[in-house]
């Protein structure tokens, strides 16, 4: 039986529809990510699951219990906010202990559990500091500890890392995943960062305009995008119309669809058995750390990504090249 079930969720604000027919089945201990552009409704789902916003229609059950009418304080759902929402009048220790105090846990247990939790997020030495005395990363760890200490059934993470710089964000992504595995906790993360989603999730629900566009494992989402929106949002797919791609390849494609996608890294300059070929003039090259992304002008513009090799880069701008792709890497979009 699924641990958290969302069925037929709809949300309207006045005449504006924010969510349309959202259905999700989540297992215990799964790390789920809601991925999508700003304003697609992913945070609204979290707020409805938490009970902070009412749904216009639909049902949410946690461990088989219908959450309709259950107050946020009684749902046993934790949440970490983008702006941390730490209580400014309390120290780190008091912030983390707050949930246990509300549950009237005895003082000795509170102290012990707070110490354990602060150790888990590596903040034991900051126990007596106030939130304003901490860095953004430290504040987010306190927020995480405060949410985890009450042992919620589901932990909701509303873009918790988006305000942090890249290095700290990557470190916290790893920490978050490690803690989630250690506690076997069901977590739902909201993010608009596809790399973050790929790095931490068991499953990703990609959202667009208030509905779920596709869901699957990170590998499924990345290698088999269902439609043009997913192909564009995940990675830097080349999306071609049937006519343009058939002209470039010089073959008739058998799949019944109007658009096709090719991953930039699936293109290469050396020909292998069974490869198809598209030609284009090299127009622009951008170095992105370990990746070099080259834009070609063929029947239509497309990009190719290569690993940045020590011996340097051999493509000359303005020169015509043949790029090869395996048949199975040409993905038909619905």
């Amino acid at each position, binding site marked *: 039986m699924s641990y958290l079930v969302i069925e037929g969720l709809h949300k309207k604000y006045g005449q504006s529809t924010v969510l349309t027919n959202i259905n999700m089945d989540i297992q215990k201990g799964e790390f789920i990510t809601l991925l999508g552009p700003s304003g697609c409704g992913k945070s609204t789902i979290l707020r409805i699951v*938490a009970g*902070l916003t009412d749904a216009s229609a639909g049902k949410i059950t946690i461990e088989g219990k219908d959450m309709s009418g259950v*107050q*946020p*304080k009684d*749902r046993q*759902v*934790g*949440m970490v*906010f983008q*702006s*941390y*929402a*730490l*209580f*400014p*009048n309390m120290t780190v220790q008091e912030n983390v202990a*707050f*949930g246990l105090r*509300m*549950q009237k846990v005895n003082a000795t247990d509170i102290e012990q559990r707070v110490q354990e939790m602060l150790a888990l997020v590596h903040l034991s030495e900051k126990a007596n500091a106030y*939130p*304003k005395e901490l860095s953004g990363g430290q*504040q987010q760890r306190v927020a995480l500890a*405060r*949410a985890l200490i*009450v042992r919620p059934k589901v932990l909701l993470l509303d873009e918790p890392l988006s305000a942090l710089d890249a290095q700290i964000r990557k470190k916290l992504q790893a920490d978050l995943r490690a803690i989630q595995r250690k506690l076997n906790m069901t977590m739902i993360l909201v993010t608009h960062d596809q790399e973050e989603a790929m790095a931490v999730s068991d499953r990703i629900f990609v959202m667009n305009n208030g509905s779920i566009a596709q869901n699957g494992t990170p590998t499924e989402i990345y290698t088999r995008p269902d439609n043009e929106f997913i192909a564009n949002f995940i990675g830097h797919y080349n999306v071609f119309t049937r006519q343009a791609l058939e002209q470039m390849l010089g073959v008739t494609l058998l799949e019944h669809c109007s658009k096709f996608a090719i991953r930039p890294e699936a293109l290469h300059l050396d020909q292998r058995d069974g490869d198809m070929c598209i030609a284009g003039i090299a127009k622009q090259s951008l170095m992105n750390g370990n990746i070099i992304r080259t834009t070609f002008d063929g029947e239509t513009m497309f990009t190719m990504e290569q690993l940045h090799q020590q011996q340097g880069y051999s493509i000359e701008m303005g020169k015509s090249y043949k790029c090869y792709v395996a048949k199975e890497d040409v993905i038909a979009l619905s």
Partner: protein
Amino acid sequence: MKKRGLADFFFLLLVGYLLLPVLATMLYAFASKWNKTILPEGLTLKWLSTLFQDTDFIQAFGRSVLLASGAVSIALLVIVPAIFVIVLYFPTYEKWIQMAVVMVYSFPGIILAVGLIRVYSQIGIPMILVVLGAYVVGILPYIYQGTRNSLRNIDARQLLDAAQLLGASKRQAFKKILLPTVYPGLFAGALLSFSVLFGEFVLINLVVGSRFETVQIYLMKKLSTSGHIASAVVFIYIVLMGLLTFVIAIVTKRSKGATNL
């Protein structure tokens, strides 16, 4: 260097211009005689002592404190919860409060007094209660700004959500999180309101007059009988306002520190 000297000169000139009348008045409250000399001929505590032995003054002072603190207390009980609810749950209604705030500033005291007398004098409500009501409305800008700024500094809605998800009821969240966080701003707003009302003269004098003699009306009366006593009243008023300003400064500084996230 020359520019700096010129700036200092004009600054000192301004400070002197502002402080001289205040210092002179305060000095006059301690002067035994000050008629034909540049400085007082002698200093005395006689005027202050006389003032504190005058039951009219003590009663007037008590009435001023009662009226100002009563209006502030009512405002805190009525206006503050309304501001909380509007800011947290109905932010679109905030424009109406802002409009009310502007209207408070735009009504001259004389117009307000005449209006209050015409509307309320015939219907049996004690006019002092009418003034009290007008005072509550009059301090809306100070209470509103103090509360609103404190709430703006802390994303209050999200703090409430966080507290509720940790098992707190709305009441507990308000009491344990929001109130301690916005308290310094609220306190500063209340003190500011108190000091404004304590010094109010136009409305109380025109609507109620000597039937409810406050410090300001007492001061007006004493101006025609004894300049020294009047100066002593001003001295006490300035000391009180100075104390309130000092407390407001400390509280506001603490408030900024607490919400600097």
